[in-house]
């Protein structure tokens, strides 16, 4: 049973001589609670694939299923609704709203997700979980990269999504900070059972995932599910 699934998804950019097959028939499913890392050389289609799963873009051909529903032909309004409620995003460049405080950034996401309950309390708790309990009123410009990415994780997770998508979340961070961020996400995955899907070039990140999917030229080259979580790597210990 998959909560998110791609069936023979193709994405073509451009036309004629400039045609690029960013995804060339990808079929992949993600079960609830899975922690998957997407690897592959630059230009192999990682970001394109995440955009399909994250409903930020629609495939040229093939289907995308979210919790058994085919969403590949839905209106942008319906897609926005599903994104708001079910999918959390963590971006390489953090993508916080610069004029809003850490707390407000998280609240915006709860507001758009129409999460029931006291948004301020939920947002505060989410920020405390990522270790920013004291900095909730700071603007992104007053936070370090690692702290900003923690806010982004809190924003993605506060609304209790079914899936968190992170496109190279550690690429803009030094390795120690990257490891911290990764550890936080691992912890959330284990404690809350949230499905995670990452892309990365970072071997450290790859080594701590149970499932590693390798893309090459828009196709799945390897889909490797390890029996158990690899031990050892500092990045993986919480």
């Amino acid at each position, binding site marked *: 049973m998959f909560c998110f699934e791609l069936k023979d998804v193709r994405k073509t950019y451009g036309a004629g001589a400039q045609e690029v097959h960013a995804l060339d028939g990808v079929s992949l499913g993600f079960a609830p609670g899975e922690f998957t890392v997407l690897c592959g050389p630059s230009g192999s289609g990682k970001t394109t694939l995440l955009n399909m799963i994250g409903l930020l*873009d629609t495939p040229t051909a093939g289907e995308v299923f979210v919790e058994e529903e085919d969403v590949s032909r839905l209106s942008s309004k319906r897609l*926005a609704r599903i994104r708001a*409620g079910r999918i959390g*995003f963590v971006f390489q460049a953090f993508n916080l*709203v*610069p004029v*809003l405080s850490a707390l407000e950034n998280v609240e*915006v*996401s709860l507001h758009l997700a129409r999460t029931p309950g006291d948004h301020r309390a939920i947002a505060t708790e989410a920020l405390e979980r990522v270790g920013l309990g004291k900095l909730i009123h700071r603007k992104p410009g007053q936070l370090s990269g690692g702290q900003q990415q923690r806010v982004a994780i809190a*924003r993605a997770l506060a609304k209790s999504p079914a899936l968190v998508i992170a496109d190279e979340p550690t690429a803009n961070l030094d390795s120690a900070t990257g490891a911290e961020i990764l550890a936080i996400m691992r912890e959330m995955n284990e404690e809350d059972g949230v499905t995670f899907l990452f892309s990365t070039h970072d071997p450290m990140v790859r080594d701590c995932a149970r499932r590693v999917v390798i893309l090459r030229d828009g196709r799945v080259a390897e889909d490797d599910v390890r029996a158990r979580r690899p031990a050892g790597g500092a990045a993986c210990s919480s």
Partner: protein
Amino acid sequence: MFLLKLAVKNVLRQSGRTLLSMVAIIFGVMALILGRGFVSGMKENMIRAQVDALTGHVVAMPADYPTTGGRFPIDELLTLTEAERAWLADRGYAWTVRTFFTPRVVRGRDAMRVRAIGFDPGRDEQIFPRGDWTLRREPTNAGASAVSDDGVLISAGIARIFGVGPGDTLLFESRTVDGALNALELPISGVFESGNPALDRVTVLMPRPLVHDLIQHGEAFSHLVLRLESRYEAFAVAQDLAEQLGTRAKVRTWRQESQALVEAQEIRQRILDVIAFVLLAIAATGIANTVLMAAYERVREIGTLRALGLRRTGVAALFLLEGAVLGVVGALAGALAGGALVSHWAVSGIDLSGFADAAGAEGMYDDLPFTSMLYMEFSWATILGAAAFGLAVALLSSIYPAVVATRLAPADAVRAT
């Protein structure tokens, strides 16, 4: 609600640019308010000057009397019956009669035709106040009444043309009502300056007995003028008076008499409106630019909000709100500043005497009545209208940037730098 908060914060973030757009709206709204306040003040000023100097609130004249062209015939004049006098007294109106005619004034080898107004020394000043006039008289005469029966009052314009002053004499030539030629040498009892070009150019005020000596009109007159408690009664009173006087007279209200003036002012109003619109159009491009820049600068932010589930309509709303924030603040500030200036000038007035002199020298405003103090008209309708217009301009000019922002594809936008 959070969109509004976000809009406000975004507008505040670019304070310099915001200020520029804001200033443009403020000036546009102010220009609308001041322009309209000025023109309606001018209109009001002219109406009042005309009422106070020439027509009163209701004026009756012979049925065939010309109402345009500056002709003042005396071949057919009016007289009042006892019954009509009683009716006027009974109604309690302030009234007087005047006789307009156009004698030739001769002094030495100079001669010119002037407009003379024959007035009733006992009553005229109650209808046509002279409180604001400056009157030059002979020093020996200084204590005497402004209205003397033994001489004429001439306008400053005539005094200049003939180089005469109080104590001098002028020869007046005119036909009598029967068509006979007559001439009379009359002393100048004073030179007046009313501040109203319609009087100050070439007008002679001549007491009724002297007029009679010149044109032999007896009890007759060309104009019966009423002054009312409120000028808005004029229409009803004019109807009653017309009924009393019958077909031999035509009765007109101050409104009819000032129509041409008012129309001229409305043209001016349109010109000022165009200027204000141009200012607001400049403001509009400023705002469009501000909001558009905001859109392009914030592509990634828009993408992020879209990824978080904000719909296209939400993005549009955000940018429209940013325009609205600019518009509301700008329109309010413009309305406040414009309203404050108008209400100041509505009370203390603007001195137009320099303008009147300049215009008078050009001969442009010879026939226009106005007084040298202009009081602007304060009107809530104008202020609210101008503010609403400024706000609408701000909103309209953020439509295009809003559309641009909604067209961004979220997948590209989240990764923009």
